[in-house]
């Protein structure tokens, strides 16, 4: 009994967590009326495959996906590079004001996005980046949380490694690239996943800094199913089911590293 109970509890937990996803997928195949029923009929009476065709007709999702991937992968790569370098600097380099500087970096986490929205937008306009990829990418290429995570990861490495490498004539950059970064791979993957998800899921910023269809991302595409007087729930779920596929695939691919990194940094899920 003692061995079975955890499995039962975990099974119930899994059901609770996966139910919204199952509901989303089955709702994607329902009619609008069926989708809005208050009763818990999970399966569609007739599977509406045409919902997918209707979804893709409603907005140029192929273009949106291209933009989302381009932006999310570029941001991810940039965040990994900047957080590796800044995290290493805060963990291993001694320079005047490093603690104050790190405190300032952390302080940026306390400022709500809404407060910086207008100043950031003004800057984007002045740089003439409106409706351009740099507006979607550059502001997100570094963030305090990733720097903090990488710093914690580097602090966990014994300083003997660095001392030994230094004796062999290894400089900071080489030590970082050849020794330290591979040792904190789970954290690199975690930072990368957070960066990807943050970028891929962002809505308000892309909505504000773009207006051309050709520059829009998938999350903006989802808004076309919400009108002033109602939501096309079946089509919205259909589009959502498609939109989350890349993130689900990425999570499963990097699951092992993500868990290692999360446990190592003490991140609560």
């Amino acid at each position: 009994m003692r061995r079975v109970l955890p499995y039962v509890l975990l099974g119930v937990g899994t059901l609770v967590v996966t139910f919204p996803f199952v509901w989303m997928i089955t709702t994607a195949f329902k009619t609008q009326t069926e989708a809005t029923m208050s009763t818990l009929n999970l399966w569609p009476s007739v599977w509406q495959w045409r919902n997918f065709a209707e979804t893709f007709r409603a907005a140029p999702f192929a273009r949106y996906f291209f933009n989302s991937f381009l932006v999310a992968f570029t941001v991810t790569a940039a965040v990994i590079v900047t957080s590796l370098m800044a995290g290493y600097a805060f963990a291993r380099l001694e320079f005047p004001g490093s603690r104050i500087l790190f405190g300032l970096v952390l302080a940026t986490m306390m400022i709500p996005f809404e407060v910086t929205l207008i100043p950031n937008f003004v800057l984007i306009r002045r740089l003439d980046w409106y409706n351009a990829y740099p507006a979607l990418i550059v502001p997100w290429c570094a963030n305090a949380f990733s720097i903090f995570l990488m710093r914690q990861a580097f602090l966990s490495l014994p300083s003997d490694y660095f001392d030994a490498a230094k004796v062999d004539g290894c400089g900071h950059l080489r030590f970082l690239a050849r020794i330290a970064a591979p040792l904190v791979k789970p954290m690199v993957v975690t930072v990368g996943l957070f960066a990807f998800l943050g970028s891929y899921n962002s809505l308000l910023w892309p909505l504000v800094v773009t207006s051309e269809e050709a520059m829009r991302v998938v999350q903006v595409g989802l808004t076309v199913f919400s009108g002033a007087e109602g939501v096309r729930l079946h089509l919205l779920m259909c589009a959502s089911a498609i939109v989350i596929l890349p993130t689900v695939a990425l999570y499963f691919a990097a699951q092992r590293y993500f868990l290692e990194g999360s446990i190592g940094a003490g991140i609560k899920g």
Partner: protein
Amino acid sequence: MRHAARAVLTLTLVMGAVGCGGRSQTSDASGTPASGARPAFTPVDETAAVFWDRQTTETAELLRTLVDDYNAGRPQDLLPVKLEHVGGYTDIFRKVSASIQARALPAMAVGYQSMTSEYVQAGAVVALDAFVQDPAVGFAPEDLGDFFPVVLETNRYSDFDNAMYSFPFCKSALMMFFNKKVLADAGIEAPPVTWEEFFAQCRQVKEKTGKHAYAVSVDCSTIDGFVYSMGGDVIDGQTTLFDQIASVRVFELFEALAKEELAYQISPGTYDDETALAHNEIAFMFRSSSARTSIQMLMEGDDDRWGMTRIPQADPANPRTVLYGPNICVFNTTPEQQRAAWAFIKYFTSAETGVKWALGTGYLPIRKSAAKDPQMQAFWDEWAYNRAAFDCLEFAKSEPTVAGWQEVRLLVEKAQTEVLTGIKSARQAVLDLKHKADAVLAQQ
């Protein structure tokens, strides 16, 4: 609407904090700002008059077609119009607010009066009176007389010399939607005409069917409409009238509905009342007439199962309801942009285009002449309730356009929630509301 209002309020405060001030200036019909005015804003696109809108799916498609038609037939000396979907009304307000700070704006955008008031304060929009009255590009008196007076009046801003800072775009009226099957199950043949009948029918529905009669979407515009229909008003100058008898009766109605469990509050920002009506779970809901198309879809074409009529009245011989809907405002950019924006507005509000828009979207035609249009008449003949909202235009009343009303809206919705949840009595809620709302307006 409540979420939108909250976000708008937050952004309003942010706009204030970053220091946008000064009043807007008027312009002449050539779009030249009056002397002494702040410099115009830069257009977001020099080659086109960009129009920031919020329409989606079929209505967006129709608007795109109308824009294409306009561009194809426009005089060549005018810039073409470029339609850009910018999300919901709150998103548009956010983007315009940010763009005001960046001093780069589109030619025009849709928005509610409370949003336009904020733009006016930032000097970002131009008054349209000069365009309207211009002999060359404006409306002839008989043409202007074709508009329902209320749709024009709602675009005049009493805090800003009563100038017309926007023009009607999508208009609709607060209506009562009812489920005939639920009413029939309760032994009711016709929807209520007075508020007394409404309450009695709610009781009857509960008693005979065990269902809630009314799903309440907490919304200031609905409260305003109810107050109007009770023969009252919500504001007099800069003073609110929430402590007056009509307003008290509205809040007491909600108090009684909640106490007797005849009504329940839906989750804010959802359309659960529409789905409840479509699934025969309630008898009544109150929404904008533009919800007709959404209900029709949810009812899957079963038009015998539901209806839409004017809201109950204190005095049916002297009916009132509230006029909804966003307007278009023209931004203080270059004269070319303003001229192009005005030309498009004129095209869009022409009798012919207005009918196309109304038929394709469910919004109301804003001209009286639409009543004679054969297509419109054919549409009204299709279903007994299709004309109900149009008939309300004769007596519909717009909501206040005073600065600070956006914040008052939140207070009204808070008071409504407090009454529905039993936190406060109706009397206490209206007294507190009056006190706080007056304080907000006094600060403006």
